[in-house]
C-alpha cells in the first residue's frame, strides 16, 4: 500500500514568548491508501492541531508534512489551494461550518465548483450520485441546514468533504454530536470510502468511537504519541498505562461488566502544565521516580507496535485493576 500522507517529526508551538507551549512534540505519523487511522486523545492532547497540520492549514514549527510523496511543509497559499480538493476535512459540529443560507444542493456543489472542472450539468449529475452515496434523499437536497437535524447535516459535511474525491480525509470528532444510529451510519460510510482506496484519519476522545472501523489506532497525550498499533492488538493488550486507562474508562453497554476499572487522578492537563519527564507521569498510577525525570520516546515493541513508556521495556506497564 502506498503512503498518502505523512508527518515527520512534526512539532507545533502555540502561544508566544514565555507562554509558548508545544501542542505537538516530534510526532511521526503515516496513513496509507485504503486505511483508516484512528487518533485518540482527550482535550488538549493535540488532535485538532494534528488535523490542521495534516491539511497544512497551519505550518509546523519543525518537521515535514508530506502529501502523496510531495513535501507540502512550506508551500505558498496559492499552491496549497490547488491541493485543497485532494485533502479535506469533516468537523465536529456541522451546524457551525455549513452556511445556513445555502441549500444542501448548493453546499454540495461548492467543492465541485472549486476543485473540479465539471460544468453545471455534470455537477448536477455528480450531486445526485453523491447524495445517494451518503444516504441523503433527493428531497433533502432542497432544504437549508436549519430544516435538518445534526445527524443529517453531518452527512452533508461528509458529502462536501468527499465531493472532490480527495486522497486524504481527516475527521475531527465527527460522531460526537450524533445519535448512536447516525454515528454507526457514518462509520459505515467511512468503511466504504476506505474500501474505495481513500486514506482516512479519524479522531476522537473515545477509543470506542473509532474502534469499529479503524485499522490502526494512535493514542495521543499532551502532543505526543504514547502508543500506536493495529486496532485488534491494541484493544486486546494495551501496553501504555494511558491507553489502559482510556479503555478502562469506556462504559460497556453490559450491566454484567460493572465495576473494576482504572481510576486516574485529576483531569487531562493542558500543554502549559507539561512537566519534565513523561507527560503522563503525574496521573499515572504506576509512575516511578525515573518517569518524572526521563522522557520516554516511542519504541518499537514486537513488530507492529510503538509505545512511549519506560516500564514497557521490562514488561511491567500493566496497571492492576481496583474496584
Amino acid at each position: 500500500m502506498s503512503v498518502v500522507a505523512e508527518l515527520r517529526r512534526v512539532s507545533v508551538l502555540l502561544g508566544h514568548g514565555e507562554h509558548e507551549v508545544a501542542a505537538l512534540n516530534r510526532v511521526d505519523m503515516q496513513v496509507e491508501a485504503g486505511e483508516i487511522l484512528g487518533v485518540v486523545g482527550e482535550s488538549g492532547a493535540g488532535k485538532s492541531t494534528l488535523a490542521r497540520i495534516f491539511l497544512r492549514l497551519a505550518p509546523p514549527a519543525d518537521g515535514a508534512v508530506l502529501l502523496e510523496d510531495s513535501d507540502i511543509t512550506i508551500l505558498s497559499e496559492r499552491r496549497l489551494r490547488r491541493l485543497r480538493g485532494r485533502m479535506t476535512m469533516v468537523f465536529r459540529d456541522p451546524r457551525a461550518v455549513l452556511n445556513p443560507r445555502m441549500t444542501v444542493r448548493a453546499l454540495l456543489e461548492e467543492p465541485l465548483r472549486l476543485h473540479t472542472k465539471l460544468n453545471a450539468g455534470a455537477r448536477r449529475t455528480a450531486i445526485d450520485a453523491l447524495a445517494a452515496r451518503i444516504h441523503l434523499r433527493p428531497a433533502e437536497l432542497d432544504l437549508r441546514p436549519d430544516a435538518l437535524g445534526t445527524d443529517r447535516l453531518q452527512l452533508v459535511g461528509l458529502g462536501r468533504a468527499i465531493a472532490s474525491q480527495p486522497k486524504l480525509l481527516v475527521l475531527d470528532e465527527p460522531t460526537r454530536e450524533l445519535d448512536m444510529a447516525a454515528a454507526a451510519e457514518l462509520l459505515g460510510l467511512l468503511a466504504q470510502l476506505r474500501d474505495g482506496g481513500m486514506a482516512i484519519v479519524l479522531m476522537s476522545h473515545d477509543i470506542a468511537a473509532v474502534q469499529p472501523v479503524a485499522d490502526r489506532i494512535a493514542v495521543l497525550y499532551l502532543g505526543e504519541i504514547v502508543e500506536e498499533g493495529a486496532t485488534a492488538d491494541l484493544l486486546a493488550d494495551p501496553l501504555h498505562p494511558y491507553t489502559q486507562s482510556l479503555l478502562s474508562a469506556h462504559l460497556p453497554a453490559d450491566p454484567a461488566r460493572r465495576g473494576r476499572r482504572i481510576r486516574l487522578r485529576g483531569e487531562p492537563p493542558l500543554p502549559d502544565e507539561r512537566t519534565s519527564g513523561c507527560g503522563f507521569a503525574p496521573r499515572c498510577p504506576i509512575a516511578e521516580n525515573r518517569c518524572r525525570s526521563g522522557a520516554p520516546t516511542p519504541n518499537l515493541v514486537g513488530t507492529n507496535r510503538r509505545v512511549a513508556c519506560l516500564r514497557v521495556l521490562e514488561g511491567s506497564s500493566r496497571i492492576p485493576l481496583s474496584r
Partner: protein
Amino acid sequence: MLLDVQDLRVEHQGRAADNVARRPSALNGVSFRVVKGRILGLVGEHGSGKSLTASAILGLLQPRSRVVGGRALFEGQDLLRMSDADLTRLRGARIGFVVQSGHATLDPNTRVGAQLIRAQSVHRRVAKAEAAWRAETIMSSMGIVEPRLRAQAWPHELTPAAVQRVVLALALINEPQLLIADEPTAGLDITTQVQILDLLYLELRRRRIGGMIITRDLGVVAQYCDDIAVMYGGQVVEQGPVPQVFARPAHPFTRALLATMPERLAIDAGKVRAGPLPEAPDGCPYRPRCDEATERCAIAPPLVGAGVHAARCHFARIGAP
C-alpha cells in the same frame, strides 16, 4: 414510589410558514416511575422528548409548550397541578435538577462558594459558617480538591469538568430526595466523565437519593442505573430493570440502540441507516424505521408486559430469549 409519571402529554403551539396555527404533540403519553433509592436511566435519541419530559415535570417548559394531560406524582403530590410558589420551594430543595449546559447554571458574577451558600439559604435558615462548611463538604465529595480554595474561584476560572462538579454539588447540597440530571457529563473527556459519574453514583447511593439520569449513552445506563426507560417519538417504548432489559430487549428500537453501541457494532459497510425522525405517523412511531414492522403497526401498539418489564410493541415478547 418517589416519582410516578403517568400518561404525560405535551403540545407545542405555533404557526407554520403558512400562518396556520399548529399544535404538534411532543409527548404522547409518557409513563415511567422512579423508585426511592434507585436510579433510572432515561435514554433516547435527539428529539425523542427526554429533556422535554424533565422540563414538563419540573414546570420549566418554554412558553410555547404546554402540558395537556397526565400526572407527575412526586411523593403523592401532582407536580403538574402545583402552584408556581410550591414548585419553586421543591426545586433545588427536595428535587435537584442538573440541566444540560452546566455553565449556564452558574451565576458568572458570584464566586462558586457563595453560590453554594446561597442555594442553601434560599430554602431554609442556616448559619453562614454551617452553610460554608456544607459547601466545602459537598464540593469535596464531587471530587474538587482543596474545596476551601476553589470556593473562592469565579465560574469562568473553572475547567468544564470542574464546572460540572460544582453544578452537581449545587443540585445535591440541599439533600434532595430526587435528582434529575440531564446529560450530566456530555461534552467532557472520557476519563473525567467516569470520575464524575462514579462520585455521583456514590453520593446517590450513600444518601438513598432517587436518580433520573437522562443520557444518549447506553453505557452510562448499564454501568450506573438500576432501571431504564427508552424513549422514542415522545413515548416510553420500553422500560424495566437494567439487567432484564439489556439481556432481553423486547422493543425493536431498544435492540437497534444496543446494536449500535461501538463495542457491539459490526460494521457492515453502508448497511446501517439512521434515517430522519418521521413526522408523527398514526400507529407506532418507530414503524418507518423498524425492520420488523407489519400492517398491524399502523394501529397504536399497547403496552405489553406485566410487572416491571414492559414494552410498547405489538410483537413484544417479554422475557423471551
